[in-house]
């Protein structure tokens, strides 16, 4: 009787932990997307010390999310072997595992690029701003800070360890990746997608995007009319790409 009791409690606990990890994964996706948006402004005219501070904050919350999530996933997946939980549970965990590792790799490549760009375009002196590329972006990060702040994970508030600087962060993530794959072996090809192809196209209800596409296209239409008047002899190199 005791044994059954014990396993029911365990089951509930595991469900709760899975839910936590799921939400943390979504939060991580959000944070890494924000990081990427900020990184695209590095080296451009929208780059400034404020942007870089925002990047630091984003990176730090990503760091906390990553370490917490990796600990919990490793614990759940290695602990799973002892307790005979359902196949579905195991499948959900494996899917989370694959999602997390993919997200880590994606984030890692963004981190490396950001590290490289920060090295190329240091902003220590005022004249450094002359070397920034005029891309047309003026303001890189309105609203991003707000969405980053809204990410929630139960452990973000609790654990207050200091986050490392950029280079050690990269090294730490690489080490984490290898270590995780050594400790838990999940055949990632056994994970299947839950959504069919093209499903995401129908998820967004509002469509203010039409104007955006139109904006990108309008340039072509209006200027083509202008260009038609001149009929410039374009170079005979033909289409590349």
């Amino acid at each position: 009787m005791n044994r059954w009791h014990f396993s029911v409690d365990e089951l509930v606990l595991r469900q709760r932990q899975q839910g936590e990890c799921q939400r943390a994964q979504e939060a991580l996706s959000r944070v890494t997307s924000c990081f990427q948006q900020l990184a695209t402004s590095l080296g451009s005219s929208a780059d400034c010390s404020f942007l870089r501070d925002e990047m630091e904050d984003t990176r730090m919350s990503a760091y906390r999310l990553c370490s917490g999530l990796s600990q919990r996933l490793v614990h759940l997946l290695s602990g799973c072997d002892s307790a005979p939980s359902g196949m579905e549970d195991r499948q959900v965990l494996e899917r989370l595992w694959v999602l997390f590792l993919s997200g880590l790799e994606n984030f890692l490549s963004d981190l490396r690029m950001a590290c490289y760009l920060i090295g190329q375009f240091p902003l220590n002196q005022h004249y450094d701003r002359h070397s920034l590329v005029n891309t047309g972006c003026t303001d890189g990060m309105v609203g991003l800070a707000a969405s980053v702040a809204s990410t929630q994970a139960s452990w973000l508030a609790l654990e207050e360890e200091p986050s490392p600087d950029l280079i050690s962060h990269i090294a730490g993530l690489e080490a984490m990746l290898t270590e995780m794959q050594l400790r838990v072996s999940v055949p990632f090809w056994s994970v299947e997608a839950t959504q069919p192809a093209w499903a995401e196209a129908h998820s967004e209800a509002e469509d203010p995007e039409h104007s955006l596409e139109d904006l990108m296209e309008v340039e072509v239409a209006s200027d083509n009319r202008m260009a038609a008047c001149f009929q410039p002899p374009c170079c005979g190199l033909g289409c590349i790409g």
Partner: protein
Amino acid sequence: MTIRTARPDRGQHFRSRIHCLKKLEATMVEMQDPKCGVKGSEQKLNITTIPHVITGETQAHAYTHLITPEEAQAFGTMLVAYGYIYPLQNHRKLIMCNDTSLYRFQTPYFWPTQTWVAEDTEYAIYLAKRNIRKKGVLEPYEQAHYNHLHKWLNHKWDFIVLQATEQYKAGRERKKPDRVVFDCQERAYWMVNRPPVSVCNYNIFYQQAIMRSKVKSSVSLGALVKYITTYKNHDPFLATCLPSNPWQTDNDTYWNLNMRGIDVPTKMRVERWSFSFFELLNDLRGRDDFKIFLKKEFSGENLAFWEAAEELKLGTASSMSTKAETIFKTFLAPGAPRWINIDGRTMGLTVKGLEHPHRYVLEAAQTHVFLLMKKDTFFRYLKSPVYKEIQKKALNPEPHNFTYQNARNRSPGIHPIILWQQEEQEKAKAAAASAPVDVKAMMSKIDRKK
């Protein structure tokens, strides 16, 4: 962790361009200089204005103070083709037109790099994001890529959709003009870096990968270990080279002792002949020794045929037909003076091929003869008194002991042209000696003597 979708390495155009890219980056930064760089202006759209747009004309003008106008045109087009600058109108045509058409600088995040390749996963995220934005209306090639990636990256498809949704939302947080710019930037980046259009190439690649012959690592490693144990004492850098390594001490005694026509070879050289038949034949001195042995056995025709076939393979094209004829008359014709004993099928094929001789017409027969010699004659040679005698005679030179003083006594050695002349003389003598005996001339000589 990920199976990097093992697509064929588009390494044909992956030469190291790091220095070139670094120079281009420096040029791009120079162009931003407010005083002498490329002048930008504002682009007026319906809702907003976006700064920093440049025209093709201003670009071409900026380059011409360094290079000719044609080169400026080509340089500008290359900048666009590589993705440093992108066109705003007609974004599919990556060229620079020397007129008022509009361009913009690409943000450094999307500049081409050598170190990090555009990944399939990232492309999938971009396609999913575009799918969300355009509600399923993608270009045909994008649809093809999407379907392909959905199949091959199925295990991380949930991540791709999740990340695409989040990136889309993050993009929405920005101001309108910045969003337009960012979307144009991203679109331009993938226009340059998208994978090739025909997706079915991968299939052939996988088929070939499966068909490749595989060897167990225990087998290949065993072969490697065997090779190393056999040859390690003969490597001039791993083991001491007797008397001394000419590259290290500038003394060429080693080369003199190991020349092609030398009478007494070194012990190491003789030992090397015993490693494999290939080594024996390759070393011309060893081949000579083998010839002496074969003469004693009266079975020199195999080696003579092999050498003649080598000459045909490596000789001039003009001499090929005459050589082929001589070889046929000497070795292959029924009743030939030095007839070689090869199996009927190979003989038939070779004779047929000799009707229209080419360089490799004797390849099959040569291999057959090589294997005959290797399996039979070679081992008899190694046990023969000829080999044992040469082993005894072989020199073991003393290692040199160079001090600072006597290192200065260096000689230039024999001129290679003189060596070559000597070899040619030897060859002529050997040819005369082994020519088929002209019976009539011999008989007339004997008659005259009488």
